[in-house]
């Protein structure tokens, strides 16, 4: 009787505590890291988790083949057994979702990106990493977390507040590479048409029209991705919109896509595509862009991924390998801006081998290992010190119309690249709606009306 009363009282107390804890916080409670028992000694010991095994889920990417040869070194150094599963992007994220939502903990470390991480972090599926980074026992000396490009590293941090707090709060993922956007062009076609590299979007439209006149019937001036999918509004068109000062939300937190600048940017974008791309442009995904440009059908790849460069430059894979130039994205009224797609590695909060998982992650994102992967083809480097490596610099020197052009454009782009979308688990849906409005406008021309309708829909979702 006595014991039961105590238990009951304790139960009520716990419940009361829980209730008050929940009351004012909603989804902004930061889960605490579940650090493993720290190994003895005050220093980093790579063999601290010897004998454990971890499983990784990687998305098919050049990065993966640069890392695989290095895994045996890691295993030898730490005594940790590593198993990797590699899946194509869509399938990989599907499987990851199945695992995370079941809290099965099957994968300890996985490749991910900020957009997905906003959903995962909000759901509590990611292990916050800042304590691991700060621990001298778990992280090798010389890790130098400040060496990461600030904007890119910051994209992995979030306070879990909806629509704000990027760059602050817990660290959810460590970057391993990033992609941003540029203008890739064919110098020979420009010369033939008497066109200079466009500096603004209006100049781009001009260039398209001049190219139209000089190109044969089965070649087109311009290509860009345009499917009704968030990558259009997050990355490629998103970059253009940002240079018009248009982001998904404006400074007051209202949906800004249908503002006068938003409509202006959209209309110019559509005009460029309509004048310079084939009729089926509204169905182009990134691989139509990649293949189309590599096969020589287009003069300009517009606001497209700089990561396509290795393919363009490879004579086995492209018909234009000796005729490619790179330039920064054109400028809009508010200057130049690009989005960025950042690949990260994150840790499963349900992992049963967190110590070993962290050992792997900090090894993977260390200066030495990342540089090895960059040299083997994992682009683009996320650490500021990466370009100090002479080999790496020499490797990309050949890319572009003149030596060093690619690197110059990349460094310039890195300064303006950033993730300028509000963090929110429903962001994918919102971006999709925006993309769909753009596509609809391509077919029916009612840009302003479509954008306004989309804005209203997004407003309902995000608020």
């Amino acid at each position: 009787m006595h014991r039961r009363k105590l238990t009951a009282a304790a139960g009520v107390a716990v419940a009361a505590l829980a209730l008050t804890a929940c009351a004012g916080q909603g989804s902004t409670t930061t889960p605490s890291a579940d650090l493993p028992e720290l190994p003895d000694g005050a220093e980093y010991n790579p063999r601290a988790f010897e004998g454990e095994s971890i499983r990784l889920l990687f998305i098919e990417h050049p990065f993966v083949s640069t890392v695989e040869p290095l895994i045996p070194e890691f295993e030898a150094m730490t005594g940790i057994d590593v198993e990797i599963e590699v899946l194509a992007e869509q399938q990989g994220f599907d499987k990851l979702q199945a695992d995370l939502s079941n809290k099965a903990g099957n994968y300890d470390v996985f490749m991910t990106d900020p957009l997905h991480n906003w959903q995962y972090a909000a759901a509590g599926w990611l292990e916050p990493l800042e304590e691991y980074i700060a621990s001298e026992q778990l992280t090798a000396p010389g890790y130098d977390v400040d060496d990461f490009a600030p904007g890119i590293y910051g994209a992995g941090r979030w306070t879990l507040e909806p629509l704000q707090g990027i760059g602050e709060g817990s660290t959810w993922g460590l970057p391993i590479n990033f992609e941003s956007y540029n203008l890739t062009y064919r110098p020979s076609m420009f010369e033939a048409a008497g066109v200079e590299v466009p500096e603004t979007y209006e100049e781009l439209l001009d260039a398209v029209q001049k190219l139209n006149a000089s190109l044969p019937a089965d070649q087109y001036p311009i290509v860009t991705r345009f499917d009704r999918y968030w990558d259009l509004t997050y990355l490629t068109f998103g970059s253009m919109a940002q240079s018009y000062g248009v982001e998904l939300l404006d400074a007051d937190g209202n949906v800004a896509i249908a503002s006068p600048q938003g409509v202006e940017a959209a209309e110019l974008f559509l005009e460029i595509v309509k004048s310079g791309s084939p009729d089926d442009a509204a169905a182009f995904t990134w691989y139509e862009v990649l293949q189309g440009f590599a096969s020589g059908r287009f003069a300009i790849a517009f606001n497209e991924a700089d990561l396509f460069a290795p393919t363009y430059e490879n004579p086995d894979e492209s018909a234009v390998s000796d005729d490619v130039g790179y330039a920064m994205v054109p400028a809009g009224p508010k200057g130049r801006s690009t989005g960025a797609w950042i690949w990260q590695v994150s840790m499963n909060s349900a992992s049963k081998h967190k110590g070993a998982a962290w050992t792997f992650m900090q090894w993977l994102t260390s200066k030495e290992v990342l540089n090895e992967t960059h040299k083997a083809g994992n682009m683009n480097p996320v650490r500021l010190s990466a370009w100090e490596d002479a080999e790496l610099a020499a490797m990309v020197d050949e890319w572009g119309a003149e030596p060093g052009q690619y690197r110059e454009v990349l460094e310039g782009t890195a300064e303006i690249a950033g993730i300028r979308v509000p963090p929110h688990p429903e962001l994918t849906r919102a971006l999709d709606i925006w993309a769909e409005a753009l596509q609809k406008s391509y077919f029916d021309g009612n840009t302003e009306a479509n954008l306004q309708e989309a804005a209203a829909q997004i407003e309902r979702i995000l608020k």
Partner: protein
Amino acid sequence: MDTKQKLARGSSKVGFTAAYVAIMTFLLFPIVWVLMMSFKGYDDVIAYPPKFVFEPTLANYQSVLFGDTGSMSSGAGEFVGYLGNSLIVSLGAVALSLLVGVPAAYALMRNRIGKEDTIAFTFLSFRFAPELMVIIPLYGIFQTMGLYDSYLGLILSHQLITIPLIIWIVRTFLQDVPVEIEEAAQIDGCGPLKTLWRIVLPVIRPGVASAAILAFIFSWNNLLMGLVLAGGRTQPVTVGILQAIGFDQVRWGWMAAAAIVSALPGMLVALYMQKHLVKGLTMGVGK
């Protein structure tokens, strides 16, 4: 034959030939195109106008069968491993479905308890359920039961695909079997199982063969089960083929070669079973 009949016969022959050619072109063209793609280098694959004449290369097949250290992350022999996995799972799934399904179909046909159709329909309703509905909870269940990444688990999950096919196709064939044959056997003293095995099965052999081939093919082609419920050890070939889709490239040549390689077992199974597909009821009945 007079001229009119000759003309009619001639033109109908032309008509039939044209029909066969049309069907074959429709069925074969994409296959031939994929076959060509599997021998093309990347720049030939994306070339426009499309190339029908090109310099063939075995690089894709080499990469699929033996792995390479290029940008494909499949190691040596990995793809062949996937083939083996798919073979085990699909053959196992069909075998289990035959074992379980044929007697069930027979029982449903002969046992007049009045609810056969409902029960049979429930089996069919598996096919109605999009796998998506069950796959995520199934993943959780499999993890708990230790069935994840196991051949047994996959074989069981594939029953969702193979059982409806087997039960219903066999059932449709069963209704063509005259009851009298079975009754003769029963009067001779055979129980239902023996009747099924000795008398009925030989008669419906074409039906069982068709059902088995189709069930095998659908199981082989399935993506979602293998994606979510298989891990590194039991990954099937369909998931393996999609590894051709990288983040920055689609390796069409590799994908084509992988698709051709993974179609081979199905072709062999189909060819082997073809002999059972020929000639029907009269053969068995004449005995």
